[in-house]
C-alpha cells in the first residue's frame, strides 16, 4: 500500500448527520472526530440510539455525512462518486453485521468464494484463499454445510470469513456478538482481535457487550451524537503504541 506508516487507516473530522422526518429534524451526529490506526481493535460503545451505527455507516462510506470529512487511508472520500466509493470499499473494507446475512443456497465455502469471485480475484487463488479464511475462523470442517445446517455462532464466523477473505485494511463490525451466546461471542471477539493484531487491520466494532472491553485496544464511548470518552485499555498489549486521541 502506498501509504506512509503513520497515515491513519481512517480519519474523520467534524462529522454531522441528521435525519429529517416530515417537519422535524433529528441531529444524530453532532461533530465527531475520530481516527483509527491499523493493528487496533477499537470498540464503539454507547446507549441505544446514540448514533453508533450511523457513525459507522458514514465512516465506511455507506452513507454520506451532512458536514465533515472522512479519509480512508489518507484519501478523502467526500468528493468521490458512488462507483468510486464502492471501489474503495472493495479494496479496503470488510463488514460484519448483527445477522450473518448468508445466502441460503450456498455452502460455507461458496459464500466465501462468491465474494472473491465477484470482487475480481484471479480464479486460481479463489479456492485456496477461501479455505484459508474458513480455517482462520475455525470452520475448515464445516466448509460444505449450508447455513441451515450451521449454528448461529458458526454462521457469524462464516460471515467473518467472508469479510476477512479480501484482506481488508478496515473491518467494520456492528454488534457482531449480540445474537450469540457467551462462548460464541468470545470466539468471535478473539477472531476480531486476531484480525487486528495479526493482519494489521483497523477493526472498528460497535457493541453493547462490556465483556468485549477486556479484548479491545481502545474504547470510544458515544452519547447523543458526541464522543464522550476515548480510552486505551491497559490490558490488551497493542502492537502499535502510538497514541492517537480523537480530537486534534
Amino acid at each position, binding site marked *: 500500500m502506498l501509504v506512509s506508516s503513520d497515515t491513519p487507516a481512517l480519519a474523520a473530522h467534524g462529522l454531522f448527520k441528521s435525519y429529517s422526518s416530515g417537519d422535524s429534524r433529528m441531529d444524530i451526529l453532532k461533530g465527531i472526530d475520530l481516527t483509527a490506526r491499523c493493528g487496533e481493535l477499537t470498540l464503539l460503545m454507547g446507549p441505544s440510539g446514540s448514533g453508533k451505527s450511523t457513525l459507522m*455507516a458514514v465512516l*465506511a462510506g*455507506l452513507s454520506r455525512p451532512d458536514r465533515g470529512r472522512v479519509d480512508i487511508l489518507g484519501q478523502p472520500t467526500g468528493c468521490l462518486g458512488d462507483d468510486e466509493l464502492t471501489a474503495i470499499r472493495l479494496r479496503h473494507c470488510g*463488514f460484519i453485521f448483527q445477522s450473518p*446475512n448468508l*445466502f*441460503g443456497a450456498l455452502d460455507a465455502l461458496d459464500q466465501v468464494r462468491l465474494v472473491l469471485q465477484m*470482487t475480481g480475484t484471479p480464479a486460481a487463488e479463489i479456492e485456496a484463499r477461501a479455505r484459508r479464511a474458513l480455517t482462520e475462523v475455525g470452520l475448515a470442517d464445516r466448509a460444505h454445510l449450508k447455513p441451515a445446517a450451521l449454528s448461529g455462532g458458526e454462521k457469524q464466523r462464516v460471515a467473518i470469513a467472508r469479510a476477512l477473505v479480501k484482506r481488508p485494511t478496515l473491518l467494520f463490525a*456492528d454488534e457482531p456478538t449480540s445474537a450469540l451466546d457467551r462462548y460464541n461471542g468470545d470466539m468471535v471477539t478473539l477472531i476480531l482481535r486476531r484480525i487486528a493484531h495479526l493482519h494489521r487491520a483497523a477493526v472498528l466494532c460497535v457493541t453493547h457487550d462490556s465483556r468485549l472491553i477486556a479484548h479491545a485496544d481502545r474504547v470510544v464511548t458515544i452519547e447523543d451524537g458526541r464522543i464522550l470518552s476515548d480510552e486505551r485499555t491497559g490490558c490488551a498489549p497493542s502492537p502499535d503504541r502510538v497514541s492517537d486521541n480523537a480530537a486534534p
Partner: protein
Amino acid sequence: MVSLARQTLVHEWKRFAAAILTLAFSGLLILVQVGLLLGQLDAFTLPVTRARADLWVTAANIRSWDQSTIVPARSEGLFWSHPAIRDVREMAIGYADWKTGNGTRQSVMVVGVPLQPGALAGFQGVPAETLAILSHPDSVVVDAADMDKLGAEVGGTAEIAGKRVTVGGIVHGFRSNLMPLVFASPASLRQIAMDGGTGGPPYFLLKLDPRFDVATVRDQLEAADTADSYAIATPDELTWMSARFWLEESGAGTSFGFSMLLALLVGVGVTGQTLRGAVIASLKEYATLRALGVRVGQLRAIVLEQSLWVALAGNVAMFAIAAALCGVAWFLDIPLVMSLWLCAVTSLFVTAIACVSGLLSLSVLYRSEPADLLR
C-alpha cells in the same frame, strides 16, 4: 465457479416451480394452439400440398384454393408451348351428397386424382396399390379416420349424387376439416359431377423441368394470359393464400392473437412476481455484497442469469409436456403440427417472457441499501 443464480434455483426449487410451470404452460398454450392451427390449415389444403404439381393453375381472383371454378380448356396448349413445361394435367374436385345403405348422409368433397402415369400421377402419401384401386370403374377411396362418419366399410357400397360407387380401400392422413374427402378417378368424378362441357376444369397441374426457375415460369405464363382468365401459384403460395383466407373467415387469427397476449401477460405476471420475490428474499444478502464492494451491475447480472435458468427449466418442462400431448394427439387422430420453427419461436417467446420478468424485478435490487444493514 459459484453460480448464485443456479444454486438458488436448485435450493429454492419450490419457490421457482410456479414460475417454471407458468412459463411452460404459456409456451404450451402457443405451441398447441399454433400446432392445432397448422394441423387445421394442413387439413384444409390437403390436395394442394399432396399433389405433385410445381405450379397450380386456378381461376383468376380466387382467395382460397377451393374456390376455383373454371380454367379455360384452350389454355392447355399455351402451357405446353412453354419450354419449361414437362407435363400438364387437369384436376377437378366436386361437392356431392354421400349416402350409404345404413342411412348415413354426408356432404363430401370428391377429389379427382390424376391417374395417368407420369410425374403428376397420384398424391404424395397414396400408395400405388391404392391408385390401382381407383382405376377400377366406380371405385372410390376414403380416409380411415372418416370411415365412421361416412358409415363406410371397405368393399361396401355408397351413393354419391345418386351414383353407386364401391369403397375400394382406405388412405391415411387425408382427413380434411372441411368435409370428408372422397378420392376418385377423373372419369368417375366426371360421371358424378355430370358437368361435361363447361369450358374447362377447375385446375391444371403443371410439372416443370427442374432446370427452370419456378417463379420465373409462373410470371411468364401469367403474362401470356392477356385475358386474365386464370391465375398461377406454387403450392406454397396457394396454401398460404388459402390459410390467410381461412384465418380471416374463421376468426381463428383473432382468437390466437388474444390467447398469445394472455399467455404473455400471465407468464410475465407470475414469473415476474416469483423473480421479484426471490430478489426480495435475498435483499439483505445482496446488500452485504454491495457493502463489500460488489457493484449493482453485478447483482443485476445475477438476477438476469436467474431468469435465464428459469427460462431454460421452463423450456424443458414445456417440450416435455408438448411431447406427451403430441403422443395423445397422434393417438386420437387430432391434426397437430409441431414444426421446428414453431418450437424455436415458442422457445424464444418463453425465454423472452422470463427475461422481461427478470428486467422488471431488477427495480427491487435498488432497495438493497447496505447502509440499512447498520442499525
